[in-house]
């Protein structure tokens, strides 16, 4: 058996083995089933929530927020990032602001956003958007600044306009780095989503986790955790696929 085939099988087997171990520990009474419900119980709770229709509003609420936040944050981040990469002047103006605010943990500004934008949808979407914005902006700017000068020289040699240089050289040249930024952003967006939903929210997977803990319905909490993990994993796969499509020249590397 080749090592990659072994790795692939282990990828599936090791999480399953862990779940099985967990299940056995609960059944044997080694672990308190009230604090750590067996995987079978969590799946049962999940199925029940699907049947009663209780789950659906939480899922749609979370997915809507994360998609809106990602869309706003990455559109703004990519645009401003590329402009900063191309223009030393814009960079000189904006970079100090970015550098000064970047170290503030994104989850720490949730209360601030609740004050400014109220406890409605907007504050949650914007908290996600701003977290995404930073990482995408920095990657886009770096991506443009790292483009080999020789490609800009070719553009100059061909007498391309600034507009053409942007679309045919700056953007594709920075795209691999922009894509890695977007992939990181998706992961961060899930973290921020859950924290934003803990407070001032009646829906969402984060709310489910929080509420499950508060009313000590721990199976609900675990269902929430399971779904966040599942969606996060699916989003990562989707981003890999997207990268494959928009950066075809990186294939086989």
């Amino acid at each position, binding site marked *: 058996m080749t090592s990659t085939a072994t790795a692939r099988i282990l990828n599936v087997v090791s999480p399953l083995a862990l779940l099985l171990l967990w299940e056995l520990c609960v059944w044997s009474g080694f672990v308190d089933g009230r604090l750590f419900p067996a995987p079978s119980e969590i799946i049962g709770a999940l199925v029940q929530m699907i049947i009663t229709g209780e789950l659906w509003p939480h899922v749609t609420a979370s997915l809507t927020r994360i998609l809106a936040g990602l869309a706003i944050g990455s559109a703004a981040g990519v645009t401003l990032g590329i402009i900063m990469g191309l223009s030393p002047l814009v960079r000189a103006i904006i970079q100090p602001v970015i550098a000064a605010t970047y170290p503030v943990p994104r989850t720490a500004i949730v209360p601030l956003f609740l004050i400014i934008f109220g406890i409605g949808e907007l504050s949650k979407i914007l908290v996600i958007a701003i977290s995404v914005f930073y990482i995408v902006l920095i990657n886009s700017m770096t991506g443009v600044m790292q483009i080999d000068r*020789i*490609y800009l*020289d*070719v553009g*100059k*040699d*061909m*007498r*391309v306009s600034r507009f*053409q240089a942007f679309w*045919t*050289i700056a953007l*594709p*040249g920075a*795209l691999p780095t922009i894509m890695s930024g977007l992939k990181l952003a998706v992961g961060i967006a899930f973290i921020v989503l859950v924290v934003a939903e803990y407070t001032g929210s009646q829906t969402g997977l984060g709310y489910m986790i929080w509420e499950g803990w508060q009313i000590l319905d721990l199976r609900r909490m675990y269902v929430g955790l399971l779904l966040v993990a599942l969606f996060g994993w699916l989003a990562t796969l989707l981003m890999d696929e997207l990268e494959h499509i928009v*950066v*075809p*020249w*990186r*294939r*086989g*590397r």
Partner: protein
Amino acid sequence: MTVTPIKTIDPGIKAEPAPVKVRLNGLSKMFKVNGREVTALQDVSLTIASGEFVVIVGPSGCGKTTLLRIVDGLDEESHGHVTRFHTDPSKPLSSMIFQEHAIFPWLSVERNIGYGLRMRGLPKAEIAATVAHFLKKMGLADYAKAYPYQLSGGMKQRVSIARAFANDPEILCMDEPFAALDEQNKAIMLEELTRIWSETRKTALFITHSLDEALVLADRIVVMTARPGRIAAIFDNPLPRPRQSYEIRKDPAYGEISARIWSILREEVMKSRGETV
């Protein structure tokens, strides 16, 4: 150093001197390297006629690329003057084949070759025809849709050559375009370049370290000094056209001219090495 150029064997068609295409007047270029000023080019003056093929040789680091970039308009001269005469507005004035592989990694081979034409907004059918022509000429027809990462070094270099040729400029600036090619492809490319040049009467500037290449292609050979780059000597190529790379060696004039160029070049190369060691 001054060297009396060998008399050109004039085939008699140059009844009238060709109009000037590029005129370099007292050209100098300085670079700041770690706060120290480096003179890359010093007082270079040269007049290139329309349709002329000029080959530039000289030690590594003597400013050949710098000179070509200024002629192409990529860099500004520090002192002196460059005049270029653009006669056909339907064609770009000049295009460059870069010393490094400068093909876009994000474009397929065919889109790389057609890049200049697309940027000029030429009709799609015309671009497709030109691209197909050069794909075939460069032996890349099977790789039209491939990305550069799927090509060998020599193939990438051929794409870069095709992109400049397809752009059909009045002045072709070529910076060691054949350096990455194998002997067989180099021979084919030399013939192809000679053909394109003689059919289209482009003005050509060509940098090389190979005297064979120089003597096959050139009307005139410019030898540059070690840094700061100045013109050491200019030779007229005495070998009659058409020239084949293996045929010209039989010509007694070949041995004589290459010995004369070598004697100057070797001295300059020694100087450039002594300076850095």
